[in-house]
């Protein structure tokens, strides 16, 4: 079967010239369901991604990422290893069970009016009529203040959440090694922040999520202090960085599809489907990583134990085999996308993300009429968790 490997397309995914959303990847997807890369295999088609995402011979694969970048010790390596995302088996399940209740759809449903009020407040606050820098004036404060609402933090402290989480987000991309000092500083700041929050709730319990976690930690050996702190930092980072990026990518997609924006403005109930459709064609998590636990054969390909397998979410989400009419259409009935990953490590906060974005997008569509690019946008690297750094837009304010 080695010949099959040799005939597969090849990507140097660590090269700055490699782009996940590119003709190179789409052309490779027509030739083969997988590609070889400079760091493991890449899976390019929907059906294969769907099956491999939940394959029993694969574990979550990010655990090796720092070591792959030459980082084997220090606070960043320790924090990475502590993630619930990087745990498996009963240890993973225990952490997941403790965190899940804070993210139940019933609890989040009660926050919808606050999400709507927040979106309106931010749009009201744009510095200039008819223009905004979408990331700093909307996506960043919106995503960060949603986390603050969830965790019972003062909303005016959102810039701490935003700046430190964005720095940690750089850890997902190929520039990890060069950004390590900045990432480590951000981690230290968020640790201090989480420690303060835990101490505050211990001193003065509230009826909120953090108090519930602190109680769980204090009632026996359910959750150690380190696990509590690491978990809070993960929730702050994981909830902020992905949501702000995904909102920016949503705006990018709608700038290219003005008729769909007008449709969303006139039919706000399409907000939920708009979120799903955006995440299918333009997900912030451009790849989901797995690692082979043991040797196995899949679709005729021998995969050796320890092989890293990158599941290319965007390539799978636009695979014509699964989405024959793959144009951007927020009314279409689609198969599920894998923008939230899947299986045991399915995104913990997806109900929050789905709920807050499905409120924000129709509201933006109604109030920002005829949006277009209002300057030069700047972008995060295409690998890992991508999105705009800045996205200036011009629009006609709704009357």
């Amino acid at each position, binding site marked *: 079967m080695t010949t099959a490997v040799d005939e597969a397309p090849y990507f140097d995914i660590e090269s700055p010239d490699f782009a996940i959303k590119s003709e190179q990847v789409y052309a490779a997807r027509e030739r083969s369901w997988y590609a070889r890369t400079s760091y493991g295999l890449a899976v390019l088609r929907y059906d294969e991604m769907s099956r491999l995402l*939940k*394959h*029993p011979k694969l574990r979550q694969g990010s655990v090796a990422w720092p070591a792959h970048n030459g980082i084997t010790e220090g606070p960043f390596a320790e924090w990475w290893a502590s993630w619930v995302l990087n745990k498996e088996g009963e240890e*993973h*399940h225990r952490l*997941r*069970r403790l965190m*899940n*209740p804070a993210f*139940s*759809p*019933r609890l989040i449903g009660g926050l919808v009016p606050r999400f709507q009020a927040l979106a309106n407040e931010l749009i009201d606050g744009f510095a200039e009529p008819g223009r905004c820098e979408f990331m700093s004036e909307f996506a960043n404060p919106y995503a960060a203040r949603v986390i603050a609402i969830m965790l019972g933090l003062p909303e005016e402290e959102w810039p701490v959440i935003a700046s430190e989480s964005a720095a940690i987000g750089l850890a997902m991309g190929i520039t990890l090694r060069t950004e390590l000092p900045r990432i480590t500083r951000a981690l230290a700041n968020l640790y201090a922040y989480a420690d303060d929050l835990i101490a505050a709730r211990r001193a003065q319990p509230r009826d909120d999520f953090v108090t519930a976690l602190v109680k769980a930690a204090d009632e026996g050996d359910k959750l150690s202090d380190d696990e509590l702190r690491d978990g809070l930092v993960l929730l702050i980072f994981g909830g902020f960085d992905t949501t702000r990026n995904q909102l920016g990518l949503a705006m990018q997609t709608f700038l290219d599809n003005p008729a769909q924006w007008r449709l969303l403005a006139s039919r706000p109930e399409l907000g939920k489907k708009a979120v799903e459709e955006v995440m299918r064609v333009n997900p912030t998590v451009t790849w989901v990583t797995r690692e082979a636990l043991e040797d196995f054969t899949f679709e005729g390909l021998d995969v050796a134990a320890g092989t890293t397998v990158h599941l290319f979410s965007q390539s799978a989400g636009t695979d014509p085999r699964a989405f024959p009419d793959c144009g951007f259409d927020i009314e279409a009935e689609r198969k*599920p996308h894998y923008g*939230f990953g*899947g*299986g*045991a490590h*399915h*995104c913990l906060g*997806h109900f929050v993300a789905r709920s807050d974005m499905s409120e924000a997008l129709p509201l933006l569509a109604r109030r920002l009429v005829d949006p277009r690019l209002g300057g030069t946008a700047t972008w995060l690297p295409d690998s890992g968790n991508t999105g705009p750094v800045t996205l200036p837009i011009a629009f006609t304010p709704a009357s």
Partner: protein
Amino acid sequence: MMGTNQARSQQLRIEVDFNVCADHGQCAIAAPDIFRIDDKGHLVFDANPDAALHADADDAADACPEQAITIID
């Protein structure tokens, strides 16, 4: 009346919409006494577990990313 209700309340009834279920296995993490992912990666579950597992069943229904699980009291 009281008697039959009591007898019935000893068990829950659980339904899973397999048109929606994607075999993520979050229910098996939340409520391992009711739900399990088999060797082939597919969900199997006890449709009539003991009522003492109600809280676990609710957690599983909440945790399901596809919201495929219904608990009938």
